[in-house]
């Protein structure tokens, strides 16, 4: 056996042996030139004697073999020459067997044998049979493998294949098959035997060497597959059975692995389809070291490609129940051996899944079966901790997402159970992926069942999962996904749509406050949109009102819940939006009022700081300004309250701005022209209370003034904020002026303009670029209005800048 030996040493040995080959080849050729057969044979035997070396590694041995191989082609030519001179091949065939050493003798025998067959002096089958039998004389694994691979090589093209010139007297295809299969079996035995020669220490190296030699063994099968006369019947009866027998009986994992692949890759697809039972039946008999999943996977891949190439064969698939057989085989493999690594099981099912996808693109039930099978196979090992298996499982779960749209995937009842095999973190990743896919594909989920299913699928996002710490970094991102997902829950039918949202809310409730903060708002907004849809889509206004009321009530609940989360600011916005919808879409005054009431309560009780107050108040004013459903009385109350709030703000500039904003509560836009007379029921005429507008604006001026004084007190005279306020107020004035508010006369405006111009003259103001820009824009605006030449321009014309 080859002992561990340095590379240099190997190279040196090869060099020496190679030189000996060259030397003897030289003398051999010289003898050939002198027409001395006996000497030529003697030197060729010596040359081949170099192949008896026990010390070279397979790779080095191969190099030496190739050298000798080249020399043997000269010998073949020489034999042909001898034949031409009248010496019979039978004679030569005997003569070379006088060589005393078995290895050179057999190389020579194979060399003559190939010429012998080619000459047709003897039937090909007899010579082949003799050669393949005689080669048994070499039992050394590496030497035997190379000898037999030489035999295989030189007899190529000389087999009595159908249509070959050697058929007939030379034998039949079955002789050809017989020859190749015997050679195969013998080579395989030698190959497997290598394994036993290795001590534990050398095992890795030995296995690596065996892998290098694998193709020598496999070549026999390749040649069988290349026989023209090989039809299915011959394959099934004559080839496969024997190959399988050899595979099982050799009890060697490396060989089994390689040979199964060889068979699967080497023979045509339709053969496989016809022999699925045999191919799959053998799997449980393979050694535990065999990666059965790889075998099954490659079979599946081949069949899948086959199906893809020709749609007609799918019928054949059905006839032989290919799917059923493959699934059962997969299951059996996992059952038969307890120790199948989870990664392998997953990989196998992944292959099965892609097979199913390729062969039966529209058979979702089969996909589900595969998932079931995967779940059953892996159930005991859950959760999958092996990194590879985990990765593969994620891939497996991703395959349907890529192949089908998500809604289709939602029909796979076993999808979540397979997901549950994953560890929580991975499960969540998977859920994220599902969400992303839905969002990317803009898929709408529109039935109750599917929504429930979807929420099952993505449950790790919806609620806490045992054993999983939420990662703050990604938590918001994930919840945002969920929030976006809410908008994909859409049904044509508004009732059902509402049900979908309700269902989602029920599930979201389980997620706890930290999730609700993110998930409730989108629900409410989706519902608001629904209100609009109902109103626009329902002819029967009473029915629409009823439906809207229900939805709005529900939104109310959602907002209230959100307020308790607590997320007062969002809740307040929600109330306002709901109020607006109630007012402008549904025209339900009471409900709108109720929403405002809740918003005000939140404003008073739950808004935490002054900044938030400012924002909230602006929102309140903005929404209230646009609501037209309120009667004067209720409007008064609300407006009063809002103006009250504005006066109570802490900072003067905030107060000032808020008061300005409040002025608009008394001045609603006139309805657009096209709305005309067709005003919806319950909509009040726009409020245009010029006096109160004026009151507000004056108050704003006053506040701006006192802000200026306040700054002067604390010696912050260089501050330009009050001037900014003045310019802002000026803009409000201009707005109302243009709107035709009777209180804003040219003179009032003129005096304000002068006031502002005065303030702007201040040195500090001239340095404040933002302020300057603002002021200049305002002036430009006036100038432009003057130049317009319409009615308004006349009003403006009297203004002096």
């Amino acid at each position, binding site marked *: 056996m080859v002992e561990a030996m340095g590379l240099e040493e190997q190279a040196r040995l090869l060099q020496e042996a190679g030189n000996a080959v060259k030397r003897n080849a030289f003398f051999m050729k010289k003898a050939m030139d002198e027409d001395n057969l006996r000497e030529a044979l003697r030197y060729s035997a010596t040359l081949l004697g170099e192949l*008896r070396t026990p010390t070279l590694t397979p790779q080095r041995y191969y190099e030496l073999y190739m050298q000798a191989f080249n020399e043997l082609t000269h010998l073949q030519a020489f034999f042909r020459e001898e034949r031409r001179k009248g010496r*019979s091949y*039978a*004679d030569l*065939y*005997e003569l070379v*067997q*006088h060589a*005393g*050493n*078995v*290895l050179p*003798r057999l190389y020579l025998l194979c060399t003559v044998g190939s010429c012998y067959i080619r000459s047709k*002096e*003897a039937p090909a089958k*007899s*010579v082949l*049979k*003799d050669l393949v*039998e*005689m080669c*048994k*004389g*070499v*039992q*050394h*694994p590496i*030497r*035997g493998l190379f000898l037999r691979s030489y035999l295989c090589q030189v007899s190529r093209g000389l087999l009595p294949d159908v249509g070959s010139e050697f058929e007939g007297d030379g034998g039949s295809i079955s002789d050809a098959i017989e020859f190749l299969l015997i050679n195969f079996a013998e080579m395989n*035995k030698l190959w497997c*035997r290598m394994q036993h020669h290795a001590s534990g220490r050398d095992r890795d190296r030995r296995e690596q060497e065996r892998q290098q030699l694998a193709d020598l063994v496999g070549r026999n099968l390749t040649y069988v597959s290349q026989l023209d006369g090989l039809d299915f019947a011959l394959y099934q009866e004559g080839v496969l059975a024997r190959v399988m027998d050899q595979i099982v009986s050799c009890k060697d994992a490396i060989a089994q692995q390689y040979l199964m692949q060889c068979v699967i890759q080497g023979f045509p697809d339709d053969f496989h389809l016809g022999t699925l039972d045999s191919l799959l039946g053998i799997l449980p008999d393979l050694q535990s070291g065999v990666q059965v999943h790889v075998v099954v996977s490659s079979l599946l891949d081949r069949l899948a490609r086959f199906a893809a190439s020709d749609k007609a064969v799918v019928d054949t698939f059905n006839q032989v129940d290919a799917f059923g057989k493959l699934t059962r085989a997969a299951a059996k493999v996992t059952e038969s051996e307890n120790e199948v690594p989870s990664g392998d099981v997953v990989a196998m099912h992944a292959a099965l899944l892609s097979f199913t996808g390729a062969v039966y693109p529209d058979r979702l039930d089969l996909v589900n079966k595969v998932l079931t099978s995967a779940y059953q196979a892996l159930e005991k090992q859950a959760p999958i901790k092996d990194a590879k298996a985990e990765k593969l499982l994620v891939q497996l779960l991703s395959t349907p997402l890529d192949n089908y749209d998500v809604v289709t995937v939602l029909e796979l009842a076993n999808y979540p159970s397979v997901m549950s095999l994953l560890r929580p973190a991975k499960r969540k990743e998977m859920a994220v992926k599902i969400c992303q896919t839905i969002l990317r594909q803009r898929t709408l989920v529109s039935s109750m069942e599917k929504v429930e299913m979807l929420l099952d699928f993505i449950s790790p996002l919806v609620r806490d999962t045992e054993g999983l710490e939420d990662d703050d970094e990604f938590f918001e991102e994930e919840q945002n996904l969920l929030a976006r997902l809410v908008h994909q829950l859409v049904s044509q039918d508004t009732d059902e749509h509402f049900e979908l949202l309700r269902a989602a809310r029920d599930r979201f409730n389980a997620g706890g406050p930290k999730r609700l903060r993110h998930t409730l708002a989108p629900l409410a907004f989706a519902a608001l949109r629904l209100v609009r849809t109902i109103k626009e889509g329902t002819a029967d206004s009473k029915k629409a009102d009823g439906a809207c009321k229900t939805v709005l009530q529900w939104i109310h609940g959602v907002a209230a819940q959100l307020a308790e989360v607590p997320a007062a600011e969002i809740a307040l916005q929600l109330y306002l939006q709901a109020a607006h919808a109630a007012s402008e879409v549904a025209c339900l005054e009471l409900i709108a009022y109720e929403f405002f009431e809740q918003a005000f309560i939140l404003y008073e009780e739950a808004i935490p700081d002054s900044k938030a107050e400012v924002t909230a108040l602006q929102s309140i004013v903005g929404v209230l300004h646009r609501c037209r459903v309120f009667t004067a009385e209720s409007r008064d109350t609300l407006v009063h309250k809002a103006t009250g709030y504005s006066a109570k703000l802490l900072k003067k500039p905030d107060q000032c701005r808020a008061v300005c904003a409040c002025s608009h509560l008394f001045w609603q836009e006139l309805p657009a022209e096209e709305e005309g007379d067709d005003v919806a029921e319950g909509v009040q005429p726009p409020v245009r209370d010029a006096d109160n507008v004026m009151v507000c604006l004056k108050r704003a001026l006053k506040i701006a003034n006192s802000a200026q004084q306040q700054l002067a007190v604390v010696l912050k005279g260089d501050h330009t904020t009050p001037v900014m306020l003045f310019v802002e107020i000026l803009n409000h004035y201009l707005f109302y002026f243009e709107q035709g508010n009777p209180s804003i006369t040219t003179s009032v405006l003129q005096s304000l303009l002068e006031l502002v111009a005065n303030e702007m003259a201040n040195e500090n103001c001239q340095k404040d670029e933002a302020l300057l820009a603002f002021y200049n824009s305002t002036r430009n605006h006036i100038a432009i209005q003057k130049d317009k030449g319409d009615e308004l321009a006349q009003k403006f014309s009297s203004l002096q800048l």
Partner: protein
Amino acid sequence: MQRLFGNLGQTVPIQLEFHRRDGQPVKNATVKVKGLGTEQLPLFNNKDSIYGEVKVSNIPGKKLEHQGIKVQLLGQIELASERGHPHDFLALVRDLSPPGDLVQTEKYGFEFNDVEMQYDSYRGLQVRLRYILRVTVSKGYSSSVKDFPFWVRNFEPLAAPTNGAPIKMEVGIEECLHIEFEYDKAKYHLKDTVVGKIYFLLVRIKLKHMEVEIRRRETTGSGQSMHNENETLAKYEIMDGAPVRGEAIPIRLFLSPYDLTPTYKTVHNKFSVKYFLNLVLVDEEDRRYFKQQEIQLYRASDASQANGPHAAAATLVS
């Protein structure tokens, strides 16, 4: 020799030519001479008649006086232990000329009819069997004697394939190595092929290779003085590497390349020659395990070997 006894008498150049009655050239046998390659000798069979012509030359002008010229046909067995004292098992004589004077070169024809030459010529390690024609020109104390060797081979008809059952035997070392070997016949002619198989029934030792040896045993003497001499004539490797249980290794050994003779049993009560096939297995520590098995060899007549060249084709596994 001639120089040593040169003065004692004048040596007479004697020549002998073998003839055949039908005028065809006499057949020759190629015989190996130890260390010298080969020599060509006239070849005869048992019951052949031996014809020839003896030519005794004389130096022209000189008269050679002699007491008679004769030719003897001798069959001798010579043992190494008794060198110089061959045992004649056959002695025939023909007088060629009565005593007289030889004035010029004379030719004398002779013939031995249907000579009984039942033994083959043989050259072994410690024994040889030879046939010679000895021409003697008697001249008192200094006779001129010259030997002319010839070779005798006897043939047997080709044995029927059924003649000689195959040799089959199971041998082994307990718990270590069990093999069964099989040679297709027990009796082979000299151009025959030994075909056989070795079945490995149990292999617990790491074998390195296996070979078949052809061994020859010469036995001389008998009883107390019996002596055996063994010689390995051929080593033929039939297996390289270590087989495993269940393996069957083919043997095909062509006998023709080797210098073999038929098996001889108690030739004239002087010696025997036996042949053995020795199966040798060598393990990785170079220990040798062997089993020796006698085979009978015989010489088949050329006619009966007439299946000649295509005999080799028949040696393909059938």
